[in-house]
């Protein structure tokens, strides 16, 4: 059964269309991430699910109930905000019980719930403090506690980690994942950070300009992005886009650094009706130093010459900027096997992992 179902949802302010026909669905217990650049409509979509924004047209179902015109408090949801939105004049305990108090839950039951949530999030020692006396990570925990205590049908997270510093963000990301694993609640999680989406979600909806570009598992989104936007947005460093020409049904030509054409064999034949000009999409980690040994292990690897313009060692891996025609592409290498700045190496491009796009429609071929 779906915990959340969104059908052809539209939102516009005056003449300005923010959401243009969203279709989305979250199964019970699923973790769905909405990811996209700022202004893509993901936060508006979340606010509409929460009932904080009105629906222009379309339907939102939570469980088996159409909630288009149901008040936020009656939607059986809980939400964690980017700013945490803790009530500044109340203690942590009062913050957590405020919702139950509003609903008239008996005192004893409230105390029990606070105890359970505080233990779960390890915030027992903070219960009598005010939000102003807490660190960023602690506030984050309290905000989650306030949401958890409700035991709702649906959890909504609005960029909950973006106010934390880099290290804490990674820690809290792990915590959220563990927590979701433990409580198993259906969750919709908005983020602009594709790593968060990849690591947390069971399914990701990549959004751009008010519509869902692709809604699929992280692996499918990463391996088979449905268009150039998704391909470029997910993954860091981003996928390389290399203009190419079809030279047969199973081969393409790309321009090498010296201006000559290099022919690369495709791993699979293109469908009929593919355009003459295409865009070859290659992720940095699918670019290798070409060796005969590699070719025997990965038969789909195709060689091409490229000068090394720049090398960026990060420790765990070394990124190299390589020249291909007028383009600079990025390759990701083992630090021990990394190219040296200035040398020209023979690259091996793993064509079985590469994507081909139509440059006119930007769609995956």
């Amino acid at each position: 059964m779906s915990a959340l179902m969104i059908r052809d949802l539209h939102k516009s302010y005056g003449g300005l269309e923010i959401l243009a026909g969203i279709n989305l669905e979250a199964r019970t217990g699923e973790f769905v991430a909405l990811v996209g650049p700022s202004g893509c409509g993901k936060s508006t979509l979340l606010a509409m699910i929460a009932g904080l924004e009105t629906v222009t047209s379309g339907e939102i179902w939570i469980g088996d109930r159409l909630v288009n015109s149901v008040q936020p408090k009656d939607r059986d949801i809980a939400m964690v905000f980017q700013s945490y939105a803790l009530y500044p004049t109340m203690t942590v305990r009062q913050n957590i019980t405020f919702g139950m108090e509003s609903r008239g839950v008996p005192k004893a039951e409230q105390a029990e719930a606070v105890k359970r949530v505080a233990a779960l999030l390890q915030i027992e020692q903070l219960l009598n403090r005010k939000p102003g006396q807490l660190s960023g990570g602690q506030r984050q925990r309290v905000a989650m506690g306030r949401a958890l205590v409700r035991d709702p049908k649906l959890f909504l997270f609005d960029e909950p980690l973006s106010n934390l510093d880099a290290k804490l963000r990674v820690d809290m990301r792990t915590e959220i994942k563990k927590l979701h694993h433990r409580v198993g609640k259906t969750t919709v999680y908005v983020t602009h950070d594709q790593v968060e989406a990849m690591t947390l979600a069971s399914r990701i909806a990549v959004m751009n300009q008010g519509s869902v570009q692709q809604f699929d598992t992280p692996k499918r989104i990463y391996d088979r992005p449905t268009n150039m936007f998704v391909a470029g947005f997910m993954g860091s460093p981003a996928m390389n886009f290399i203009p190419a020409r079809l030279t047969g049904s199973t081969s393409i030509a790309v321009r090498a650094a010296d201006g000559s054409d290099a022919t690369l064999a495709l791993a699979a034949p293109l469908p009929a009706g593919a355009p003459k000009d295409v865009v070859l999409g290659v992720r940095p980690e699918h670019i290798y130093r070409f060796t005969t040994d590699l070719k025997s292990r990965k038969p789909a690897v195709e060689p091409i010459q490229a000068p090394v313009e720049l090398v960026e060692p990060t420790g765990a891996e070394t990124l190299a900027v390589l020249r291909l025609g007028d383009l600079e592409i990025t390759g990701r290498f083992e630090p021990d096997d990394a190219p040296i700045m200035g040398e020209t190496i023979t690259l091996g491009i793993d064509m079985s992992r590469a994507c081909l796009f139509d440059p006119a429609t930007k769609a995956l071929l």
Partner: protein
Amino acid sequence: MAEIALSARHDPEAAAATRRYFWARFLVYAVLTLFAVIYLAPLLVVVFNSLREQSDIARNGLISLPRSFRLDAWAQAWGTYCVSGTCEGMKRNFFNSLWMTIPATLISTLLGAMNGYVLSKWRFKGSEILFNLMLLGVFMPGQISLMPWAFLLGKLGLTNSTYGLVLIHVVQGISFTTLFCRNFYVSIPDDLIKAARIDGAGFWRIFRKIILPLSPPILIVTVIWQFTGIWNEYLFGVVFTSGQQQPITAALVALTAGGTTARAYDVMSAAVLIGALPPLMIYLFGGKYFVRGLTQGAIK
């Protein structure tokens, strides 16, 4: 060693700079002192006169250092001095002012807080226009509304009563209190309201439990502003009330105008001071909160 020798040597440039700095400071303080004296002199004259004997004032003039000291004028001004036939001093008018100012201040502040809450957190179509119209009231001089008020008070049967003045000051004050509170509430993050709505709190519960507890800084500002303004207001008091119903500002004029005998400058001075005391007290005790509340946001 070389450094010590360098720093110990007499530096004429530095000495000149120090001298220039000293004279610049001296000039600043001299000008400030002069203006302080100019501003404080009238108050000082009134305080002195309230403590001098009438004969001392008559002999040595209104502006002169006291050569006598007694508190009789204060007692007279408070309780026994005769104004147009009744010999009750300013006591009754003082309490009139109090019973007018306290409710008018509280009601207008509360209404301002509620207006500010709606205009900042529950915006609706046209709420900005409404706010701008209310702002107009800030710039409208009171005398413009004299005639409408005369008509309205007459219809309501509230002429020559403190209730009438309370009504006037509540309405006249709403523009200011709304402006203060609305601008303060704008700095409260909207996410708080959204979180509370999801938590099941409604309009009033959010106001009572979230907005009001954050409000003391701005409520202190509006209370001080309203109390001082309403207490010192004169026009409405003198137009719409008379005799025993007058607030103290209006009664003070009757006191100075009504004399057939020699002018009792000592009693007048004491009466003026009695009329000025409440706002002065408010300023002395609440002044720092006033500045703080105006400059600080809702959430630190």
